[in-house]
């Protein structure tokens, strides 16, 4: 369970560029919740995720994961409990390292690192098995540099890496936005598969309203650093894109993107 209470994040406080990115926001993610997050550009979706992951500190409030206060831990320590996939496919993997080396890094997330071999034979077997389920033929290219792969392939690997050690929470930030529609669909299906397989508590940001409705058991909408709409269970199942548009208009968000309308 992740409890976010009364967090605020102001960028460039005290300057003309001051920006309240997150405004006194509270939310609780229950175990097994799969929450999709929508909202216009600059609503604060990525910032919320980055604050949970510890990319930058919160100004006020607290973030507790399964009872442990996260907000004072550095990013790398929080990473022991969190799996993350970024919008930019280049962000989640080390381009100059081999596929198996990347997976081995992920396999050691949350564990101590010493002078033992970085990738063992046994692990290679495991990685081969895991890679083959992606259906991308990567299991036969384990010693290729990740930098040689396409964005979709890299994103699929990042997803695998985020879940190789079961995270207490999975954070997906528009992780299919940079991919072509066919690949995006594949990666999304893989996400769904991994999430239900490990019954992961998940937060998934998306710009695609249909995806937000189709996936997960709960949906939240953000605007100006706040959560303006939070729906789950049956009500969420019955939701339509029109409902979401109405909710958005009600909150005074007049310029919801055309991108979302079209999709």
């Amino acid at each position, binding site marked *: 369970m992740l409890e976010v209470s009364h967090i605020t994040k102001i960028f460039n406080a005290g300057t003309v560029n001051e920006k309240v990115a997150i405004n006194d926001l509270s939310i609780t993610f229950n175990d097994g919740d799969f929450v999709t997050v929508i909202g216009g550009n600059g609503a604060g979706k990525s910032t919320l995720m980055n604050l949970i992951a510890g990319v930058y500190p919160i100004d006020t409030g607290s973030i507790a994961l399964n009872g442990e206060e996260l907000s004072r831990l550095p990013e790398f320590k929080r990473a022991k409990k969190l799996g993350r996939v970024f919008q930019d496919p280049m962000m989640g993997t080390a381009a100059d*390292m081999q596929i198996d080396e990347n997976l081995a890094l992920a396999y*050691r*997330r949350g564990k101590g690192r010493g002078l033992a071999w970085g990738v063992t034979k046994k692990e290679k077997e495991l990685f081969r098995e895991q890679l083959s389920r992606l259906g991308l033929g990567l299991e036969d290219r384990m010693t290729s540099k990740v930098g040689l792969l396409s964005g979709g392939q890299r994103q699929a690997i990042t997803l695998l890496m985020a879940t190789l050690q079961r995270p207490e929470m999975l954070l997906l930030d528009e992780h299919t936005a940079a991919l072509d529609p066919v690949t995006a669909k594949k990666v999304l299906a893989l996400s769904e598969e991994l999430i239900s397989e490990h019954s992961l508590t998940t937060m998934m940001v998306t710009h695609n309203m249909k995806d937000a409705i189709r996936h997960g058991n709960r949906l939240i909408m953000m605007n100006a650093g706040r959560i303006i709409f939070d729906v789950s269970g049956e009500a969420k199942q019955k939701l339509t894109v029109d409902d979401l548009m109405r909710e958005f208009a009600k909150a005074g968000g007049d310029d919801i993107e055309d991108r979302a309308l079209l999709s």
Partner: protein
Amino acid sequence: MGAFFASLGNQLPGTLAQGLIWGVMALGLYLSFKILDFADLTVDSSFATGGGLCAILITKNVNPIIALCLSFCAGMLAGGITGLLNTKLKIPPILAGILTQLGLYSVNLHIMGGGFRDSKPNIPLLKFSEALIFTSPNANGAYTSDRTKTIIICALLCAALVAVMYWFFGTEIGNAIRATGNNEHMARAMSINTNSMKVLCLMLSNGLVALSGALFSQYQGYADVNMGRGAIVIGLASIIIGEVLLGRFRGFVMRCTSAIIGSIIYYLIIAIVITIGLSTDDLKLFSAVVVAIALAVPAMKKKKAKVAKAQSGKEA
């Protein structure tokens, strides 16, 4: 022409020895510059730290091998300071390196002076030639520098260092350092303490640089506070020359080895231009030009490929 080659031939053993000694330095720079992606200017001073400490220890009758080991440790301390300046105090890499480099200059003077109150800009080791690892007795029993011995020792040392580096960068910690240099975001998301990895890598890097300096002061028979000036340029030149000439060979061992070979070739080039008649005063300018050209080669290759592609596109 014959005289030119005779003169160059005479210089070859010395060139090879020097290239191997500075090859250790190139390996150190490979760690920071290539693996960590951190342009570390500490090296210009940590080279002299190693050289100076080794020399003063030898004058105090410390075993020369132990002196080399302690020089390595001193270099690690220097690198650690740059690492902490960068990671804890958030000082940008170049500036962190420059600050340590500047401060170390004074520290080096004191090291060579042998105390807090004393300082000295150089230490001759003429009287201690018997203790140096690169000398052997001649017919009269006097110890003089032995080029063959130097080359064999340094070649073995370089091979051993490459082997250790190969092992280390295959371990969990080694992979964590590589990930940190490659993609910090990803490394942190994989619960890697990127700050510690940076400090560790800079320590190892400067340890090797100081070891190279220590070897060099034993080789030339004296230490000087300015002996490391421009070291970063020589190290970069070695790495880049190695990359340009041997870049098609893949694998970690080959890339480390090519840095060492690059260093030998660099000193060969220097020997040639000096034999041709370039003044030693102009060497630094020459080195800077060589590095600038070498650095430009990858960019120019890319541009050429682009132009070629655009042209073939037009024709099609």
